[in-house]
């Protein structure tokens, strides 16, 4: 295990402050007869402390890109370095370790485990990261308090509102102090009120100096980012600062 477990908000030394460094990334889904080119040469660099919104119409390849960024999937071609480390050629267990230590996921449908309490959900990545029981509990507790759910730790997901569930998910994403938080339509399943709550939390994270990449249709959320990347038909068509 050669990764340090400390905070890596500023990225590793060898990454020049680039958390994400993608070069000519392609992704082809080969279903046997038909080949679908989901990504056709993506170049993307995300620096430490950036808040990037990825926008684009349905089927443009946003989610595929997010999966690749989060090491849930591997590119068909191209070079991808996450915090300076090349991802190509790693096996499934090594990718699992990278996801565990470097990436925090926030999903549209929260993806909390229904039979676990809020606290246990947040503890899960810590469990996989080999953090001891006591420390696990403390760190999970701290994250839940940070998202304002210190009084809901023993609740199960079904006993929480949508906004609360998404905040638990954010706490879980941050539990291992990852290099980057990846969010896929984090406000997509929420009403306006809860949605803006979640946006505020994400905003707060950015202001603390964390790196965020958010895929969204939500214009309000996209505006909060400091950079907007638009994807169409598997290529980046626009990459502009928003503020």
């Amino acid at each position, binding site marked *: 295990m050669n990764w340090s477990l400390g905070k890596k908000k500023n990225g590793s030394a060898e990454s020049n402050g680039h958390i994400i460094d993608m070069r000519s990334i392609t992704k082809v889904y080969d279903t046997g007869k038909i080949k679908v080119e989901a990504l056709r040469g993506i170049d993307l660099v995300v620096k430490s402390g950036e808040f990037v919104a990825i926008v684009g119409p349905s089927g443009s390849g946003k*989610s595929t890109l997010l*999966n690749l960024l*989060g090491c*849930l*999937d591997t590119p068909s071609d191209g070079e991808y370095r996450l915090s300076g480390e090349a991802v190509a050629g790693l096996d*499934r*267990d090594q990718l*699992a*370790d990278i*996801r*565990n*230590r470097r990436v925090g*996921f926030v*999903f*549209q*449908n929260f*993806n*909390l*485990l*229904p*039979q*676990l309490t809020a606290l*246990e959900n947040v503890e*899960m*990545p810590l*469990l*996989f*990261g*080999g953090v001891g029981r006591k420390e696990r509990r403390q760190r999970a507790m701290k994250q839940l308090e940070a998202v304002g759910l210190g009084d809901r730790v023993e609740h199960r997901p079904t006993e929480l509102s949508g906004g609360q569930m998404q905040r638990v998910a954010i706490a*879980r994403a941050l539990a*291992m102090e990852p290099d980057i938080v990846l969010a896929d339509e984090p406000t997509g399943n929420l009403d306006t009120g809860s949605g803006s709550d979640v946006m505020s939390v994400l905003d707060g994270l950015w202001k603390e100096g964390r790196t965020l990449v958010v895929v969204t249709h939500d214009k309000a959320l996209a505006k909060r980012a400091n950079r907007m990347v638009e994807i169409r038909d598997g290529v980046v068509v626009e990459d502009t600062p928003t503020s």
Partner: protein
Amino acid sequence: MRFLDWRVVGALFVKASSLQRKRATLTIAAIAWGTVAIVMLLSFGEGLKRQMMKGRHGMGENIAVWWPDETSKVWQGLPEGRPIRPRMDDIAYLRDRLTAASGVIGELTSWSSSLTYETNTITGRVTGANWEYGEIRHHFPQAGGRFFNANDEREKRRVIFLGDELAEDIFGEVDPVGKTMFVDRVPYLVIGVLQPKMQMGTYKGPDTNGAVVPITTFSAQFGRQRLTNIVFKARSAEDMPLAREQFNHALAAKYRFDPTDEQVTGLWDTVEGAKIMGNIMIGLQAFLGIIGALTLLIGGIGVANIMYAVVKEKTREIGVQMAVGARRGWVTGPFVLQGLAYTTVGGAMGLVIALIMIILLGLVPVEGNQALEFLGKPTLSWQIAVATAAILGGIGILAGYFPARRAATVDPAETLRYE
């Protein structure tokens, strides 16, 4: 690293296993049922085997029975077809030479003698035998009686030992011991009645239907010297082949026939029979075991099936776990553990149920019911317990392994897409 792995697997297992009570109950019940089936079948097999052993020993242990016959080979200028008919005094000759035998006895048989007590006369079988017959042929007396002894034989006493069924036929409700009865109009004192026993093999009819008197008395009454048959008992099962060889050579030397003449030397070797019986019983046990194992396998398939359903249902959760950094082993481990846990609990329950059933069946009276007597009582042995545990363990691992393998193929990118 391994330590860490198992801690994670254990923690996940504890969380997952508190779920699906209903499913777990059904699965455990299926395994328990399979275990009951296999344990009961094997226990019935074991009970039958022991009963067969007991029945085989009813005639005596490690004995061989020889009947007179004609030679089939020319020998030392003598023609074939000569009858070989040993006499009473050959028994002493044989005893000197059969060092591998712990006893040699001769028998004289009257197949139909009239047996009379007061006004009741029936026709029955009377055997004259040496006094050692009681021990060698397992003729143990009921309380209050005895078998005849060396003195009875030496002094040609007219004493008679009755089979228990025969005694009832002649005496009815009356206790025969101490009474005088008649064998072909010659008076005899009844000295003992046979203890009821299981007897599987017989060479002249079940012992329960016959009467035995000292061979000397028999010879005096019927005027016969030529033996109906000879019985000898080897010192141990291993000594039987040597005892047979000694018997063949001793008899061949005296009566001048080829000791390899199988028509004369052919006899009933119960040790050999026991071996065949033992093999048949092993075959029967294996057969019952296979049936039981198949029943248990169905339970195992039930476990695997439920686990598959759980994997399918939890695909999303497995995907989430993988997304936040679970390695494949951590995802699959709990399923294997779960499969093992179900089979262990189910197996233990089945074993307890089977044990209770065996104890209850043991309380059912079998005396007088020949079918039940033959089937014996189901008996549990440590071999059965070990075999069952091994089969259970194997099925448990398989039942967890295959669904776990399915879980390992879950693609987190695929499962975490929009609902």
